[in-house]
């Protein structure tokens, strides 16, 4: 049995699957990272991913265009985050509670709208044909490595490009400095005449769009169909990963890869038909995420003003 694990084909499939599984979480985590760096706790990720998935899937289903699906997923996510912004930025509400509220709102709506659009179960399940992988010319022909790294989906490449872009934005641009300072002490930018509310709203909308894309990836790339609750806790896991990643882009990417690997591993083990209850295998990544949280629990890179509503007075 051990030989089956060490089999080269198994490993290639495992690593390739890792990159696929990591994509939705990476989108969400990197979006959330930016929101957190600006000082806002956002617990709405799971629900927003669900709405992004439903909206993206529906757009693709009716238009036939997968890319339109991605766009609609992003826009839906951004729109829902505007509601978060209303609670958090305008009303200055407790950010954890607001996040939970938006999470429930989005999740509840996704259930209802799914039933409304596609009827109740029993009828034929609507599907879309998923994205094809996009092998990068030349690079994908390198043996092994080409197959693992350069024969992925366009959205997967995009997720990793976003990591680099977010890093460059946060650390190399003036706006990035403003965001980092806002997260540590919003007054520093307020006293320069920059609207903290505007910064926060912009961040939330950006974050929401990223969660939306992360959600849309699931039906448009991974499954081809929408099932209620499709995100299966990935939104929550993304939150854990940002904490584990110490609020730094590349460490967050590393954390996401770790989770993607575990997820891929349990899938591959299921695939080779080991006699072990699959439900317990699925549960494994959640347990490991908690363990990861214990390891990275006391993060030194936590923005100093994270989660505290900003009042002038």
């Amino acid at each position, binding site marked *: 049995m051990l030989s089956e694990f060490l089999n080269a084909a198994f490993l290639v499939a495992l690593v390739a699957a890792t990159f696929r599984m990591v994509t939705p979480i990476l989108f969400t985590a990197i979006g959330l990272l930016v929101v957190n760096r600006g000082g806002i706790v956002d617990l709405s990720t799971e629900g927003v991913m669900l709405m992004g998935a439903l909206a993206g899937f529906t757009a693709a289903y009716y238009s036939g265009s997968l890319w339109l699906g991605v766009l609609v997923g992003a826009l839906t996510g951004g729109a829902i985050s505007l509601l978060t912004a209303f*609670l958090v930025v305008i009303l200055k509400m407790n950010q954890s509670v607001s996040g939970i509220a938006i999470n429930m709102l989005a999740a509840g709506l996704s259930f209802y709208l799914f039933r409304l659009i596609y009827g109740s179960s029993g009828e034929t399940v609507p599907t879309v044909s998923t994205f094809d992988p996009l092998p990068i010319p030349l690079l994908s022909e390198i043996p092994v490595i080409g197959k693992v790294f350069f024969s992925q989906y366009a959205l997967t490449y995009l997720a990793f490009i976003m990591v680099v872009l977010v890093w460059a934005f946060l650390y190399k641009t003036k706006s990035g400095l403003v965001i980092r300072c806002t997260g540590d002490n919003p007054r520093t930018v307020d006293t320069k005449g920059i609207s903290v509310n505007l910064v926060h709203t912009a961040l939330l909308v950006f974050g929401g769009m990223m969660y939306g894309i992360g959600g849309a990836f699931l039906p448009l790339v991974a499954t081809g169909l929408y099932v209620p609750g499709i995100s299966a806790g990935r939104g929550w896991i993304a939150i854990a990963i940002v*904490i584990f990643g110490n609020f730094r882009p590349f460490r967050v990417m590393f954390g996401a890869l770790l989770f993607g690997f575990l997820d891929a591993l349990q899938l591959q083990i299921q695939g080779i038909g080991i006699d072990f209850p699959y439900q317990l295998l699925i549960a494994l990544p959640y347990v490991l995420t908690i363990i990861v949280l214990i390891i990275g629990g006391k993060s030194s890179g936590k923005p100093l003003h994270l989660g505290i509503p900003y009042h002038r007075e």
Partner: protein
Amino acid sequence: MKYQFVVERRQQVSLWLNLLAVAAALIVGLLISAVLIRGAGANVLESYKALLEGAFGSKEAILESLVQATPLIFTGLAMVVAFRSKVINLGVEGQFLMGTMAAAWISMNFSYLPNLVLIPLLALGGMIAGAALGFIPAILKARLEVNEVISTVLLNYVVLYFLSYLLSGPWKPPYEWLMQTIRFEESTYWPNFFESRLHLGFFIGLVAAGFLLYLLQRTPFGFELRSVGENPVAARYKGIKIERIIILALLLSAALAGLGGVGEVSGLHHRLITGISKGYGWTGILIALLGQLNPIGVVLAAIFFGGLINGSVAMKIHTGVPIAVVESIQGILMFVLLSAQTMVHFKLRRIEDAE
């Protein structure tokens, strides 16, 4: 003279203003929900009429609404404990399921015991099982500063998959199609009342609410719990052991959730089925907020929401609106309620324009 308005924070919000906010939120929430009902192609007034009659239109309807309210009383109380101590326990769903599993396990293994022994034993078992799950995030938060929001949520998934595993194999009789256990022996039943499905769980819920009210408002422990929720730093300086309070609060919250789970198994279904919790843990958050974090308020909010769930069945039959509308209404109410309750903390003041 030109005027402009400035928004200012009120220092103290009266109880009346808070209740006004709740009432306003309910009205606005139902108005927004009307859009969803309209979206389903149904007549709004007719739908709401069907909903209301289905919920509270007859003695039977009212009793059934109370049945639906029962698990929500427990999860709502569980969230009150959590919110009052500012330990955000999003694991009520999982703790509830732990209660159902404990009840099922006891029912399957100890059905030879007399009913009078089993009734309290089931309750105790469910509370212990819920608390056991709550202990993990509690100890992680108190000792290792692990964020309880995430750890509690993630444990929900673990429990959910574990339950799914039990019901697909070990606890499923071979002849059974559905993922569920056998029907338990009658010795394990909690009694029913008024010749309806209303069971002991509802009354235990009422007692639990009274107990919690007393605990929070009249005992040193309740005072400490509220103090830690209000300001953990000051609480610590004044000799309150906050780690201990955090752990106890989570345990209490989780035990209440677990007890709620027992009610659904031993009082209602008499077997463990998939989907035994219809997101009660999450609805509990709304119930707690709707009830102003007050145990009596929770009972009222739970009955209101039980009616909504019960009435939605009648609405589905009469006007075809999918039952999932309840989940949407829940989300909308939550949003509107929080907005309203925050808005009453502000007031508008008119000032002369500087010009």
